């Protein structure tokens, strides 16, 4: 009589093999030969390349002005909100100080897509929503003698103005290189600020300026009126109120700026206008003190 011994199936061996195989397979797929995607859509681009792609869409839009096509191109990015992405990239580029043309292209596209951005307000020539901390960018009535764009020539001499003082600027900051007051029959009562990269140099956009009075501060950025200067900002004062002005984090506090009534050269009653010019200190300052107008 023959006895057939049926061999037992070894579940333990199978389990052991499966575990070892899965571990080895995962190690191979994740570490040795990871998956690489080819022939991808723009939506699968890495962050830097994605931004380059968006920038190129904006640059192309500047030339062809074909919003529909720009939107179609943006669709390839699989963005939840392409307009917001463009606006965000414009603002980010603005803050990083990338070339103005790039920021401008992004800002214009963002604006065309209906997405307000800080950069759009500065670079596209239209006024956008104010910055988060800002109240508003004050718009004065048209002054009788507006600065001549784009070759605006801010004062270079420091005018002695009674009561106006400035704290020392922080190291590497900006100093008040010029201060002028004038009495205007209409359009007065405005603080006009300029921020330059050097005395007589280029205006700097997107520089925060803070105007304070009675414990209330308003913060706004230079550059909203590029037709005057990229480094220009203004603020309409309230009559009889005294203000301080500071280029945030860059200058000392300029105090004693007061909106007061005055008499113009023609004998009319007017209001004082202030022009403040901030720039890095010159290596050899040659500031002149001129008489008040």
């Amino acid at each position, binding site marked *: 009589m023959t006895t057939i011994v049926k061999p037992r199936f070894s579940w333990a061996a199978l389990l052991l093999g*499966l575990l*070892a195989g899965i571990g080895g*397979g995962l190690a191979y797929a*994740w570490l040795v030969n990871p998956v690489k995607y080819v*022939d*991808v859509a723009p939506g699968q681009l890495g962050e830097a390349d994605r931004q*380059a792609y968006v920038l190129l869409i904006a640059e192309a839009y500047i030339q062809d002005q074909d919003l529909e096509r720009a939107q179609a191109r943006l669709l390839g990015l699989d963005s939840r909100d392409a307009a917001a992405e463009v606006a965000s990239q414009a603002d980010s580029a603005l803050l990083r100080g990338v070339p103005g043309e790039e920021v401008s292209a992004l800002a214009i596209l963002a604006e065309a897509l209906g997405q307000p951005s800080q950069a759009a307000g500065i670079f596209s020539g239209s006024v956008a929503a104010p910055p988060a901390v800002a109240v508003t960018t004050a718009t004065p009535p048209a002054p009788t003698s507006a600065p001549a764009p784009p070759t605006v020539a801010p004062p270079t001499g420091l005018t002695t103005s009674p009561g106006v003082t400035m704290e020392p600027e922080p190291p590497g900051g900006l100093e008040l290189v010029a201060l002028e007051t004038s009495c205007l029959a209409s359009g007065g009562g405005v603080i006009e600020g300029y921020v330059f990269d050097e005395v007589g140099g280029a205006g700097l956009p997107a520089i925060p300026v803070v105007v304070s009075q009675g414990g209330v501060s308003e913060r706004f950025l230079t550059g909203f009126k590029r037709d005057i200067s990229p480094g220009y900002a203004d603020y309409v004062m309230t009559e009889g109120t005294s203000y301080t002005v500071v280029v945030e984090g860059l200058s000392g506090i300029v105090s004693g700026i007061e909106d007061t009534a005055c008499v113009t050269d023609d004998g009319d009653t007017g209001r004082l206008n202030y022009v403040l010019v901030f720039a890095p200190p010159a290596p050899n300052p040659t500031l002149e003190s001129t008489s008040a107008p």
Partner: protein
Amino acid sequence: MRRFLATFLIGLGLGTLAGVLAGWGFPIQDTRTGLDQLHPDYKAEYVVMVGTAYAASEDWDQAQAWLGELAEPDPAGYVVALAERFIAEGRNPDDIRSLVRLASRFGYVSQPMQPYLPPAGQP
């Protein structure tokens, strides 16, 4: 023992297959890629955009830098081939002009490109 080994090997094979498929299906590393891996259609669109932007900026260095991102071994040849393909396919004339503008800047102008060349004095 032999049976144990055979079962183990079967398990090992099945496990490896499952592990590899799972690993490729659910990658742990960032799978986002570069412009050089764009689908050919998107690459073509990208080059058209470069040509359009170049028409506005006239910045040839920038245009070359953008084209360089595609990592084509012969950027000029790629642009020329693309321009000729677009002409042959009767694509959007503005797109063709953008491509021809780039091709001509590279110094390659073929007969079919002639009608799409920018007027003298333009980039």
